[in-house]
């Protein structure tokens, strides 16, 4: 496999991510993987499996259930957890609303995106998670370009971008006080292209939603929003039947898709390499303002 003494960029990124994941398990008592059902968290889970082979992944998956899911995401999650033989923790937004911990947004643009923060922080506190690993990448968004691998959160789960710990070489400082926790991002240095090439190289199973398929959708803000029981049509909007796929997976009410014929991994890689807009460009949560991601991250968003 390794003929000469250098690694390809995907091998180097993989090795770096495995190193980070092993640091997490070595430095923290109760780490977990934040599992959204999207490709990035699937890749992190795959890397964690490689990092501890032949042992099982020594930490649970946490899934924040907005109650507005794609059915495929939940099926995929349950199958994966069964195959890995590890624990699944579900944090429920609906439960947070029922308990009065969170208040549902109202109006035509309402989403449960912001409410995930409450459910996530509750789950972290209840299960005493001290390091939550996620699949966020620095190339996704401006505020993430300055994120650390080991990102310190205070006792309120908040991020302070101006007061981040410097991170040098590959020495990670996971020291914290009681009640504080870390978010850790092992695939920080990967781009969307790297993730897809890696999924192809490793032949990692991903939800069918990423492949082109027929579904009902409505065109809004530059992308195709899937029809669901939660969709409220605006004036002039109409449901159409489209051959489409999703580039990211999140809450069904805010995840827009693109028209596409890419129904295999090879075709997706080709489509992504030819594409001219960012994947988060189809997420209405990022379009609220120039710094909307930074604002949500400060509060404790992944």
């Amino acid at each position, binding site marked *: 496999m390794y003929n000469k003494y250098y690694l390809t*960029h995907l091998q180097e990124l993989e090795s770096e991510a495995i*190193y980070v994941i092993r640091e997490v398990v070595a430095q923290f008592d109760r780490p977990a993987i934040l599992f959204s059902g999207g490709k990035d968290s699937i890749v992190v889970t795959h890397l964690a499996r490689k990092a501890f082979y032949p042992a099982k992944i020594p930490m649970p998956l946490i899934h924040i259930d907005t109650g507005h899911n794609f059915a495929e995401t939940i099926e995929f999650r349950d199958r994966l957890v069964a195959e890995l033989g590890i624990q699944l923790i579900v944090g429920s937004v609906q439960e947070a609303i029922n308990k009065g911990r969170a208040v549902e947004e109202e109006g035509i643009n309402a989403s449960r995106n912001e409410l995930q923060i409450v459910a996530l922080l509750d789950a972290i506190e209840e299960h005493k998670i001290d390091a939550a690993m996620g699949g966020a990448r620095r190339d996704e968004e401006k505020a993430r370009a300055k994120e650390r691998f080991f990102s310190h959160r205070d006792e309120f789960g908040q991020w302070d*971008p101006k007061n981040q710990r410097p991170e*040098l070489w590959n020495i990670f400082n996971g020291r914290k006080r009681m009640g504080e926790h870390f978010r850790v991002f092992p695939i920080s240095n990967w781009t969307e292209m790297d993730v897809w090439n890696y999924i192809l190289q490793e032949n990692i199973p991903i939800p069918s939603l990423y492949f082109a398929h027929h579904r009902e959708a409505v065109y809004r803000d530059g992308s195709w929003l899937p029809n669901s029981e939660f969709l409220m049509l605006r004036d002039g909007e109409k449901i159409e039947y489209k051959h489409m796929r999703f580039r990211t997976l999140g809450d069904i009410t805010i995840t827009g898709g693109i028209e596409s014929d890419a129904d295999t991994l090879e075709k997706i890689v080709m489509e992504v390499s030819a594409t001219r*807009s*960012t994947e988060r460009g189809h997420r209405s949560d990022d379009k609220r303002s*120039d710094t909307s991601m930074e604002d949500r991250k400060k509060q404790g968003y992944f």
Partner: protein
Amino acid sequence: MELLRFTTAGSVDDGKSTLIGRLLYDSKSIFEDQMEAVKQSSERKGLQHVDLSLLTDGLRSEREQGITIDVAYRYFATPKRKFIIADTPGHIQYTRNMVTGASTSNLALVLIDARHGVIEQTRRHSFIASLLKIPHIIVCVNKMDLVEYSEDVFNKVVEQYHEFASKLDIMDIRYIPISALNGDNVVNHSEHMPWYRGASLLNTLETIHIGSDQNHLDARFPVQTVIRPHDVEYHDYRGYAGRVAGGIFRTGDNVTILPSGMTSAIKSIDSFDGPVAEAFPPMSVSICLEDDIDVSRGDMIVKNNNQPEVSQDLDVLMCWMSAKPPRPGAKYYLKSTSREVMAIIKEVIYKIDINTMQRLGQDSDIKMNDMARVKMRTTRPLIFDEYRRNRITGSLILIDETTNETVAAGTIHS
């Protein structure tokens, strides 16, 4: 395809943002919606041109102040290589950011305004690159369009830099005349400068030889964690997980475990994808030993005939990164590879003025962004190499035990 990590530093006016914007744009790494957002923000601010720095300055406070505060990581790829840019601000108060960006880079991009030649900031950035042992430097003499693409001007800047750089410890320096604004010699060879026969910047970045940047001589394997499956099939399995920090490990190698000094041999080198014949940096693998001996996190597996230093006394070049100065006699957590010990700063030997590269012997008062040569003493032995031999086993950080902040970074000299 290989991965090349490089660092840049610069101020608002020297064209750094324009150059990065151009590399990203010409390699199609800026997407239409990102470009559109930057255009709209520029228009809202009443600017005449598209301000490419808005692509990199993402934090609210940076946008408000129009400055880069923190290290930003940028990504682009060509069919030949993938690149990671650690983009750092160039002001003196951001020395700690430059050090951070330099710590993981194979290459530094130094930008010089052709009209001004070598200035304080050029020296500072280059000096930090040499202290952190970045193997390659590309000096881009920028704004050649403003000096009529003059070969004379370029040669004078090269001469000036060359003289200054002779005092530094840098192995590989290249010079390229460019105009980031017009794209001369950035991606394609410039028609305006037929006298320049070297490669364009992108072409240099794509082809510069980085295969020898890793240490392939001194076998070093810091143990991160121990893999024990606890199931029937792998009942007696005990794999030492880590990333190779130097040299090449093979099955059958006779090894010593430090700091205990116990010896064994490598039974197998494992990965999820199967056994590995040779493990070299920066591969993450698991090593199984022939003998059932006690090995844990913080230990290092090395070959019998080539061993690192094991000592409690360290000579360190330190960059202080905290607003609070070091407290006299205070103990700090010291982390180096996977090992953590307690340490005190015993003595400040001298401070370094990073603008003049002078040693300041009388001044032992350390403040944020200061570089100083210090003596440290640790509670338990550290396992290390000189930083110039190995950037992984020769580096360390200090953590304040009361605030848990990372307060200093250091390179070990003996």
